[in-house]
């Protein structure tokens, strides 16, 4: 999928939230396969946000942001679906369309995301 398509969609979403169809059940029960969500770009995404990005298979994916790591010459997002067992491959910022519009995640969910991220970092350090 061409990066310019994603850039064009991001620009479009800046003028008005963009509706996208989510495929897959990784965010169940909150977001089901085929659900439509509205996406808005942000200057910064916080752990706990549901971010929408173009996955390696070219489809738009909505997963929970856990944290950041170096990647692609800058920062890459570490994400995971709420009902997925493992986190995703790092997501470059250029692939992110925006975050799901609507109610901000509660503080507890943001904290849980951060703990998951911290756990991932510790597990990685432990393997070295």
């Amino acid at each position: 999928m061409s990066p310019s398509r994603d850039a064009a969609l991001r620009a479009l979403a800046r003028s008005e939230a963009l509706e996208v169809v989510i495929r897959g059940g990784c965010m169940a029960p909150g977001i089901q396969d085929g659900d439509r969500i509205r996406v808005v770009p942000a200057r910064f995404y916080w752990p706990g946000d549901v971010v929408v990005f173009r996955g390696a298979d070219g489809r738009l994916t909505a997963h929970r942001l856990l944290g950041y790591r170096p990647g692609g010459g800058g920062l890459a997002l570490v994400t995971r679906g709420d009902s997925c067992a493992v986190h995703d491959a790092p997501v470059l910022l250029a692939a992110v369309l925006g975050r799901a519009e609507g109610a901000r995640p509660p503080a507890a969910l943001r904290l849980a995301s951060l703990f998951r991220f911290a756990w991932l970092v510790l597990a990685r350090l432990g393997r070295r």
Partner: protein
Amino acid sequence: MSFGGQFLRYPDLFPGRRSGEPWGDRGLALDVPGGPYLFRGLSAAQEEAARHRFGGLCREIAGEGVPSAVFRAPASDFLEIDTRGWEYSLEMDHALNSVRLAGLRLMARLDWTPPLAGGLWTPEAAGEEFSSVFENYLRVLTAYRLVEQGGAVLHSAGVTDGQAAFLLLGPSGAGKTTTSRLCLEAGATVLSDDLNAVRISPSPGEGPSAVKLPFTGDLGERSGGPESVPLRALLKLVQGPEDRLRPLSAAAALAALIAAAPFVNRDPWRREALLGILEALARAVPAYELTFTLEGDVWGILKSISP
């Protein structure tokens, strides 16, 4: 607000399929790009209103086309809206095999069954009120139909000398009508100052072309002139203190194009198809940012763009 709440008194009762009580037994074919579009279920007064609005594009139904049926809807189904100082935009609800529309005195749906077919419900019986409803529906139908055919409708001013066309892209207020007027005064022909169509490859071996649509802005309908002209350049309009032409990257051109492609650009089920078409267009046709002043020679600038 859920779909329809802005215009409809009972959004939950939105028609689930294309059925209802027709206004009459009259039919009409419209030769608009992507068509012919075949309308059935019209009353005599509605047919007259459509013919008055679209003139020579109308004819009797004969042969295949994109069918639409027109049905009665009670006026009480629609909310009374004070439209003073108000910018009208349709409410749309997209699904895998259908699109629902709600607007001023209209409900409509497009269904892919799989061929595209439409239904329009309105309480408007005749006159400008009906032709306005009819045109708003036809604009959406044309936009979707052209994407099916590898084209697109673009919010743009289309100007031409008959040999090459230029599409000036921009939302309301960007200067489409103003630049159309400036070009017209300088001797150019205006296709439309509001909505034009593009076809990527009208016939084998040909490049993209700009196609005239009967949907205009403040400049009104321009009779005569070419229907389809090879597209020389795309221009994103910017008002500024000087006249200037700045090349746009293909990525920036694509962003301008998708923003200018009404209706379908907000449809999550069909947007990728539209993006593919616009990406091909952005690759095939040079794009620029055109900063213009009211005193400047817009048409001269456009003519200076070499093939």
